[in-house]
């Protein structure tokens, strides 16, 4: 019997899948739950040294003298390094490497590194730090972009205080459109610095092998191959002799895409010729590592009485801190995200990213979107209110569809399901029965007022046009039939390894338990790009499918030899190679693997994929070609007397193409919602005059489970034909619209609008009093 050749429409049709779209248990779950998983900071190699970093004692100043001689003499100290000990480029940065590895003559924020110590134990290293003498000449401290842009402000960098300026080419004539609009709204929204707060702070271990000349660094990471290059550049070392092992990582959320400990560890391991361990304290992680940028976003939006959006003008000013890292692209994505998934005939988007001596702005799940979507989606709610339109109706009226021209002017070439998510939102019990639900709750809780809010977002997937946006994988079948998939991608908790295994098992029509995924090691895996920008499932998935296309002919070749049949009479299917002529003789994967070994035919292929890009190029990665679309609903209870807000329920409705793993999508939504609620109601890295007031979790307030709502995820599928089985990505979007959804729900409950985050009980009480907050 000849099996039907399986529908190769990559999931666009109604094919029934074995793994795709199922609730597949995570391949790494058992080891994580039982504590077997070894993270970089779990490593304690024999004879290792402990490293510490000397950080700036003031937020801004010239370094007049840096004397490490006393520290070097302390018994037990094996190395004290300064900028003079850096063989190569003294800087790192994903885009512009101007963040000093060790400062030379100036410090620009409290997290700046001046010297490294490696000693036999923590206490000695700590003691040595105290013996390092630094003399500073303080410079004026700049906390905000307003101060940095003021006349006569001290220049933080030689080229001034503007890190990046982006003006997207305007579409139409926005001034005219606003002048002619029947309704014009305008408002500025302000957001705070936010901390990633991963369970595992930045850390790792490095070992230098003198015999091979290889420096190995185990570290929390998101892109080992970029780290490899950054380490090599600073050490002036052959990149092929830098091995980065970054997987698994104990949470990253964008914060570990940039260098943290890697270069410092490599420098110390090379110098001391001993294993070295460096693990940032929580305070160091908060002070030195990158944060979600604080941004001010000003919106001017014009609409007709019919509710149709006419024009949007957005200006964003980002507080980027002392160095670049990836600030330009973050600002750009804020601009791209700011109009939302809606049509406007006229638009203009302008942004400035400004250096300060405050916290370091950097990459963070959402990547500029949470800051602006907080504003946009409240403006749309205001508009709906003015027009007495249902907020979902208003959004539906303006929502984009595949093939439309976006607010920015590019064509939406890939699946665009925002309308489907809005329709699904409208059908939820929470939305349909919201007045009744609020009434019942109010009857049961007489001290509280209840509100329901909605918000949506489109979230770019991939790095954007013009940037190297690829993945490579290798797939091999061993003699025993075991399948090894190798990807450079890092497991940061998001569940990507399971999605890869599902895609590979589905494509090969074999059991998932056959598959081992080797990941995140520059010496064992090919370069698959960064796990960032919600990109890793789409691009690694495509690379896997590409590899499978090459693997199947190899298997057919083995079968041809084994069965002594011509290749054209053989076909791959159901995890076997079948003969199509002599009544279905076939060989299983195990048999094929054994025969391949016998014939010395290696079953080993590479697969590669590159992101398809937009039809427009506005520069610096703008715009994108793929988006996750999402609508979220929030139900809140507000105590008008104490100002306390309880988020009681959130429903996330993502459209991510096809859901590769249902449990994975739900996990991303549930985690993203809690993170978004933290941003909305609790979290703020407070910095005043360059000094951090929140240095740990007793002052930096994260939501606990008791502060987390009941959640529901309603998955809307709109398979994208250029994604693996129709998948796109979902890592970031669920973090984003929950903030304005909660803000809109607060408005629904107590009639107040807030333009600043986090929204605190103090703000609400003051707002209800009618006073200034």
């Amino acid at each position: 019997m000849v099996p039907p050749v399986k529908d190769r429409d990559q999931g666009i049709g109604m094919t029934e899948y074995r793994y795709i779209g199922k609730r597949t248990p995570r391949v790494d779950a058992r080891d994580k739950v039982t504590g077997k998983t070894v993270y970089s900071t779990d490593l304690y190699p024999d004879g290792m040294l402990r490293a510490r970093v000397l950080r700036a004692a003031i937020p801004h100043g010239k370094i007049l003298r840096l004397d490490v001689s006393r520290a070097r003499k302390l018994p037990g100290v094996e190395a004290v390094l300064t900028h003079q000990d850096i063989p190569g480029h003294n800087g790192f940065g994903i885009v512009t490497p101007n963040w000093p590895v060790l400062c030379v003559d100036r410090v620009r924020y409290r997290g700046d590194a001046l010297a490294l110590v490696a000693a036999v134990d923590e206490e000695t290293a700590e003691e040595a730090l105290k013996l390092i003498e630094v003399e500073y000449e303080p410079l004026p401290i700049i906390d905000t972009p307003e101060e940095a842009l003021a006349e006569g402000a001290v220049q933080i960098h030689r080229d001034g205080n503007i890190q990046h300026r982006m003006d997207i080419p305007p579409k139409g004539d926005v001034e005219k459109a606003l002048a002619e609009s029947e309704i014009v709204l305008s408002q500025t929204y302000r957001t705070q610095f936010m901390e990633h707060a991963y369970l595992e702070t930045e850390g790792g271990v490095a070992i230098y092998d003198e015999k091979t000349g290889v420096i190995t660094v185990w570290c929390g990471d998101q892109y080992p191959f970029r780290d490899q290059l950054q380490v090599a550049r600073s050490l002036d070392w052959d990149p092929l002799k830098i091995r980065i092992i970054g997987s698994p990582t104990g949470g990253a959320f964008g914060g570990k895409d940039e260098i943290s400990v890697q270069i410092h560890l490599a420098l110390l391991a090379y110098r001391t010729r001993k294993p070295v361990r460096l693990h940032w304290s929580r305070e160091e992680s908060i002070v030195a590592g990158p944060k979600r940028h604080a941004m001010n976003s000003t919106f001017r939006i014009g609409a007709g009485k019919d509710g149709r959006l006419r024009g949007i003008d957005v200006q964003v000013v980002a507080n980027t801190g002392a160095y670049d890292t990836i600030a330009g692209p973050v600002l750009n994505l804020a601009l791209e995200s700011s109009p939302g998934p809606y049509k406007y005939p006229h638009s203009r988007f302008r942004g400035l990213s400004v250096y300060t001596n405050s916290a370091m702005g950097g990459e963070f799940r959402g990547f500029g979107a949470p800051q602006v979507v907080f504003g946009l989606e409240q403006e749309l709610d205001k508009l709906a209110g003015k027009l007495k339109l249902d907020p979902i109706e208003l959004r539906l009226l303006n929502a984009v569809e595949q093939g439309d021209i976006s607010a920015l002017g590019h064509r939406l070439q890939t699946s665009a399901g925002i309308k489907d998510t809005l329709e699904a939102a409208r059908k939820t019990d929470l939305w349909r029965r919201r007045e009744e639900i609020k009434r019942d709750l109010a009857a049961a809780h007489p001290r509280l007022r209840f509100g329901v809010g909605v918000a949506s977002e489109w979230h770019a997937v991939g790095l954007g046009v013009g940037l190297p946006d690829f993945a490579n994988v290798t797939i091999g079948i061993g003699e025993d039939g075991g399948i090894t998939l190798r990807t450079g991608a890092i497991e940061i908790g998001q569940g990507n390894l399971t999605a890869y295994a599902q895609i590979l098992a589905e494509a090969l029509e074999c059991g998932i338990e056959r598959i081992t995924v080797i990941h995140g090691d520059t010496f064992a895996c090919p370069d698959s790009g960064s796990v960032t920008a919600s990109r890793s499932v789409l691009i690694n998935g495509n690379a896997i499918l590409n590899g499978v296309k090459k693997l199947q002919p190899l298997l057919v070749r083995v079968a041809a030899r084994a069965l002594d049949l011509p290749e054209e009479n053989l076909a791959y299917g159901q995890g076997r190679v079948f003969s199509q002529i002599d009544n279905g003789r076939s060989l299983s994967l195990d048999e094929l693997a054994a025969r391949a070994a016998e014939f010395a035919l290696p079953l080993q292929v590479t697969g590669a994929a590159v992101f398809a890009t937009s039809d427009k190029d506005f520069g610096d990665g703008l715009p994108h070609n793929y988006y996750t679309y999402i609508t979220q609903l929030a139900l809140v209870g507000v105590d008008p007397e104490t100002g306390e807000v309880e988020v009681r329920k959130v429903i996330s409705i993502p459209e991510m193409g096809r859901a590769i793993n249902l449990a994975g999508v739900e996990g991303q939504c549930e985690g993203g919602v809690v993170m978004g609620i933290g941003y909305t109601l609790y979290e703020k890295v407070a910095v005043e005059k360059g000094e951090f007031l929140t240095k740990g979790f007793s002052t930096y307030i994260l939501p606990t489970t008791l502060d987390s709502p009941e959640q529901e995820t309603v998955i809307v599928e709109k398979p994208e034909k250029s994604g693996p089985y129709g998948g796109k990505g979902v890592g970031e979007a669920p973090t984003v619209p929950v903030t304005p959804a909660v803000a809109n729900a607060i408005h629904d409950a107590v009639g107040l609008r807030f333009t600043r985050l986090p929204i605190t009980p103090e703000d609400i009480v003051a707002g209800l009093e009618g006073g200034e907050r």
Partner: protein
Amino acid sequence: MKFEYQRPATLEAALKFLAAAGGDCAPLAGGTDLLVMIQEGLVGPRTVLDISRLEELKNIREEDGRIEIGALVSHGRAAAAKLLREKAALLVESCLQIGSPQIRASGTIGGNLVMASPSGDTIPALYALGAGVVLKSVTGTRTVAIEDFFTGVKKSVRRPDELLTAIVFPAPEPSARGFYNKLGQRKALAIAKVSVAALVTRKGEKVEKVRIALGAVAPTVIRAPRTEEYLAGRKLDPETIAAARSLCAGESRAITDLRSTAGYRDRMAGLLLARGLEDLL
């Protein structure tokens, strides 16, 4: 972060050790504050004296109308104790407001008092109960009224050679009702931004006696004497409660810090009292 570690087997041995150490010694009870302070370099004792296994300091009992709670009783144990649930429910409420289950399992009432934080959750409840603090050293035992125990933020009259061994208070009259209301920055693991405890004894319709304590609104937990005086002899009706609310807000002396603002805290001191009183109606 280096220190000598001692774990005496008896209270007597502990007191002797403390006397000999001459001050540079930190008793370790649950460690939920001490270890954090050591880790953050806020204190650097030469010796850590682990008293956590001194069983004689873990009793809860009632004798001659007085309730005594050993200093090493954890918040979790206190909250589960039948005697306290029946006779000092407001203290139980305050213990349940502390940290998380893990913190409540290790943290002790004695440690909460010695920390002398104005936001310590058990303190307002113990003010309302009119507690005394028992301090012991090799030279003797003294009992200090809780209101005289604290002298400022993180300061108390405890001498370095003394251990806090117990908390004592008169068993409230069966008709007495109390409450502990707290606002923090989130629902659990939250340091009080403001808190109010009160114990109300009524005769018939009228308030006979009330003791009110406010947390996190002054350098130490404070009483609200004018509000207490106002309430005494009155019937708890909505007008009385409204008046008490504004009086109480006026007695709060809060400051603005990272966690909250002075104005909010003062206002909430009044509100939390009013809500507690309403709930007694």
